[in-house]
């Protein structure tokens, strides 16, 4: 079936439209959105398998030949990210049933989540640079509304900042696409890539490359452009925070990986050096933020920034090892960040505060929560049997073998400080003398724990079964290292 790769976009879209009509029927909304996101997960698993067996999948929408119409392309990298997105979305949706509250559910919460998934899956799958912009906007507009839904003061305030930053970066995206179109004369990514390799990477192309880095860096929160993220992600409720933390920045990171491996790979001396320096600074600043705060939300938020830096450093090194490491790490990081945000959401529900100094001894009454959090924490830091280890190992290996000694050392040291920052939550919050909190008996901890436990189990399986996953990862690496695979799959007869 050739339309297979559009299903992860179409299914959430139709579900979102259906959910608009069910606004007042909360039970129906829950069933529909849970079932459809489960269907999306199953479809994405089949898609990954199909890409694994048959190579890169392409679909020319409306049967227009490749550079003239919009082409959807699913290589292994985008198929894996679509699968991870669907899993994270499923977990966040079933978590929302018992945590988001009826007020938000009545006002199109589930429909907005589905539209967000449309945007994210579309951005991962598209093969057209302007279509990427449109899917970015689909994703961003749903995220604006999800961020402000509920209308508390902090949400209103932070949404204003978030919208302003994203309006500016979208305008810059349009400008960058305009420049690229005037130089290259095409919008299809594979076609742009082959035209750049025919003409060679001139100075103007390098300038456009840096513009794309600024645009996607604003979305993906790299070093000088991450200033908006700590405040904005602080505002929304836990499931929304989990969706944002797991998905939104990773779309920016994916776009950097895609454009820099497909378009701007000729003259790597300058661009990839800039990228690796910025990635290392991102790690440093993320880690400083993570150890500075004693607020559990802030700690995990700064860990997002550090992880973006690690992924981009692995990508900037551009050796087969480090690229595999980056791809493994991005999938791991999406799963584990979603799990961590859901877990700290539960902690905040129990204790009523996110200040680490105001609660302690949670392990006495909530051992399940404590040990799930412990597993998620050590997996985040990259302790060997768990999923964070393998990606970082490959990134560091690649860094050492390509001569990026400082970078590899910084990645290693950052793991230590990340472990410290997250263990600070575990030691101060879960150990110590138990206290009692107002209204904690009403919190349905057992139901709330289901989604994070699913995610943590997946993360453990990903770590233990890394041998099984490795062929998929290395297939994704091949496309990044060798853009001709991508170009040949899209543009057939030339």
């Amino acid at each position: 079936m050739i339309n297979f790769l559009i299903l992860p976009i179409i299914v959430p879209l139709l579900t979102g439209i259906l959910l608009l009509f069910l606004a007042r029927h909360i039970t129906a909304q829950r069933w529909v959105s849970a079932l459809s996101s489960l269907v999306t997960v199953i479809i994405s698993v089949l898609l990954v398998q199909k890409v694994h067996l048959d190579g890169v999948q392409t679909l020319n929408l409306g049967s227009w030949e490749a550079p003239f119409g919009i082409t959807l392309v699913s290589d292994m990298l985008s198929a894996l990210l679509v699968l991870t997105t669907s899993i994270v979305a499923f977990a966040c949706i079933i978590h929302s049933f018992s945590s988001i509250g009826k007020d938000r559910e009545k006002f199109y919460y589930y429909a907005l989540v589905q539209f967000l998934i449309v945007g994210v899956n579309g951005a991962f799958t598209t093969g057209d640079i302007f279509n990427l912009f449109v899917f970015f906007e689909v994703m961003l507009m749903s995220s604006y509304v999800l961020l402000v839904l509920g209308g508390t003061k902090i949400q209103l305030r932070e949404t204003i900042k978030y919208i302003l930053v994203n309006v500016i970066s979208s305008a810059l995206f349009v400008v960058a696409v305009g420049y690229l179109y005037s130089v290259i004369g095409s919008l299809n990514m594979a076609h742009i890539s082959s035209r750049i390799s025919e003409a060679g990477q001139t100075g103007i192309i390098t300038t456009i490359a840096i513009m794309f880095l600024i645009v996607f860096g604003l979305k993906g929160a790299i070093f000088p452009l991450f200033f908006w993220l700590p405040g904005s992600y602080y505002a929304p409720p836990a499931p929304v925070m989990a969706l944002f933390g797991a998905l939104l920045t990773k779309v920016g990171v994916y776009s950097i990986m895609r454009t820099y491996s497909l378009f701007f790979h000729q003259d790597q001396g300058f661009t990839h050096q800039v990228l690796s320096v910025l990635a290392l600074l991102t790690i440093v600043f993320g880690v400083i933020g993570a150890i500075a705060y004693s607020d559990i939300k802030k700690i995990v938020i700064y860990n997002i920034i550090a992880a973006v830096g690690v992924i981009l450093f692995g990508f900037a090194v551009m050796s087969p090892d480090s690229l595999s490491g980056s791809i493994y790490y991005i999938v791991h990081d999406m799963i584990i960040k979603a799990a961590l945000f859901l877990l700290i959401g539960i902690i905040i529900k129990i204790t009523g505060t996110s200040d680490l100094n105001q609660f302690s001894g949670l392990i006495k009454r909530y051992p399940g929560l404590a040990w799930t959090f412990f597993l998620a924490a050590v997996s985040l830091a990259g302790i060997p049997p768990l999923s964070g280890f393998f990606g970082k190992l490959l990134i560091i290996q690649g860094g050492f073998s390509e001569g990026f000694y400082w970078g590899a050392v910084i990645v290693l040291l950052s793991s230590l400080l990340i472990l410290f920052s997250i263990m600070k939550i575990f030691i101060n919050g879960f150990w110590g003398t138990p206290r009692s909190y107002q209204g904690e008996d009403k919190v349905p901890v057992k139901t709330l724990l289901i989604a994070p436990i699913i995610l943590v189990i997946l993360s453990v399986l990903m770590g233990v079964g890394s041998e099984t996953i490795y062929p998929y990862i290395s297939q994704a690496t091949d496309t990044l290292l060798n853009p001709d695979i991508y170009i040949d799959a899209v543009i057939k007869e030339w």
Partner: protein
Amino acid sequence: MEILMAIVIGVLFMSATYLMLSKSLLRIIVGTGLLSHGAHLLLLTMGGLKKGAAPLLGEQASSYADPIPQALILTAIVISFGVTAFFLVLAYRTYQELGTDNTERLRGTEGND
């Protein structure tokens, strides 16, 4: 012609940047309006401003203006229209709830930072 357009677009970007760095929320929104005008004009200019008929096949002309940038701009216009409408309503709600449009005063004290 392109040079003239480039200068005008530069002035638009300059004004937009200046307005977005100001304190009042409404000035910031006016700035985003100018910014998207600049971006759309730039898209049109970058597609080329050579002479040709409007892209309608009924014109029977020998050459036409490039239709792709026009389609891209149309898409970008409706998107920025949607975002601007949302932004304006958000600014209105913020003024109602927080009682100020001064961005200096839209600061957080939540959390122990």
